[in-house]
């Protein structure tokens, strides 16, 4: 333990609490957004990142025309939100550094927790591995096969678990753990 959050100045404890709550708020709205645009199942995530790979048959030898009647209500059927390669390049460029900063902030909190060195290493690894898995899943889904969507979901759950673990442990040690236990 490089420093002890449980014995830190109350201003530091308050700063860490506000930081964790802010991240929690942002993650909550992130969940809402995901529910609106991508969903929480491998199938819906794959439809977001690999729509063409999922639906594209081999091109025909010669162009084929198929005509069928439609109703007005069929125009209203929502097409899945799709992220193409160019947009994923931009998303990766913009978001990976931000995820790195979030993981770094949470890791600094982890350094102040009363946990074993091994547990600390594990949590820090989890915090950084989660966004890697997230984006690895997206890229593999786009480039290789829709089945890799589960990696993105795994990355998402890992990020959730990381934030939850750090938040619960930090709040417990800073505000609820008795001093005699802490010492």
């Amino acid at each position, binding site marked *: 333990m490089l420093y002890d959050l449980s014995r830190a100045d109350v201003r530091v404890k308050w700063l860490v609490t506000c930081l964790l709550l802010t991240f*929690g708020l*942002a*993650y*909550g*709205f*992130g*969940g*809402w*957004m*995901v*529910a*609106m*645009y*991508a969903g*929480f199942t491998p199938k819906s*995530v794959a439809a*977001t990142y690999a*729509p*063409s790979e999922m639906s*594209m*048959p081999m*091109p*025909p030898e*010669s*162009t*084929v*025309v*198929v*005509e*069928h*009647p*439609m*109703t*007005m*209500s069929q*125009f*209203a059927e929502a097409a899945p*939100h*799709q*992220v*193409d390669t*160019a*947009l994923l390049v*931009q*998303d*990766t460029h913009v*978001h990976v550094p931000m995820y790195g900063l979030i993981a770094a902030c949470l890791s600094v909190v982890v350094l102040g927790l009363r946990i074993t060195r091994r547990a600390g290493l594990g949590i820090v690894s989890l915090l950084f591995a*989660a*966004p890697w898995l*997230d984006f690895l899943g997206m890229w593999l889904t786009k480039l290789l096969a829709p089945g890799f969507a589960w990696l*993105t*979901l795994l*990355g*998402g*759950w890992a*990020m*959730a*678990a990381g*934030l*939850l673990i750090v938040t619960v442990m930090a709040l417990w040690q800073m505000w609820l753990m008795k001093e005699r236990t802490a010492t």
Partner: protein
Amino acid sequence: MKTIVCAAVGAALLHITPTVVLVDRPDAVAQLLPGADKFFAREVHLSDADAHKLHEAVDWSPSDGVVTFYSGRHGTTLVGLLQFVRVDTPHGPVEVTVSFDPAGTVHGVIVTKATVETKPWVLEALRAGLVQHYQGLAATGTPDGSSALRGSVGELPLYMAQEIDKGVARALAAYRLFYQTR
């Protein structure tokens, strides 16, 4: 606790650029194919050669290899047809709906989808009268509505107008290559 965890999963996909529906597709269809009471979808599954031809014409081919034309009829009379064309920009996709009258000229253009980021730019370009510049354009024409906006809108609305030009150009090329000739 479960709710918190589920919500936190969202962080994994915060990078989605949210799409905003500017005009619902059925509303756009009603505006662009007025009076039509029967609709048909003509799906053109492109061969490699035709996909290449389209790519050479407008530097684009549909990601699923299919160009779809939606026609509207009133009784047996053709009212017109339209296409929904997606243009991917660095700020997310824009969907441009382009309709043609039975004579084969552009009847109207509606931007049906944008993103949270691009919506204000698209709206500014539309308020400046962008889509009026496409009306009556022949399938062989070159859409250049953005040039007419130069000086009257900011840089980003102008950029979006150029992307919308691109969408109209794709619709014109697809119409010219795969509807008029078949």
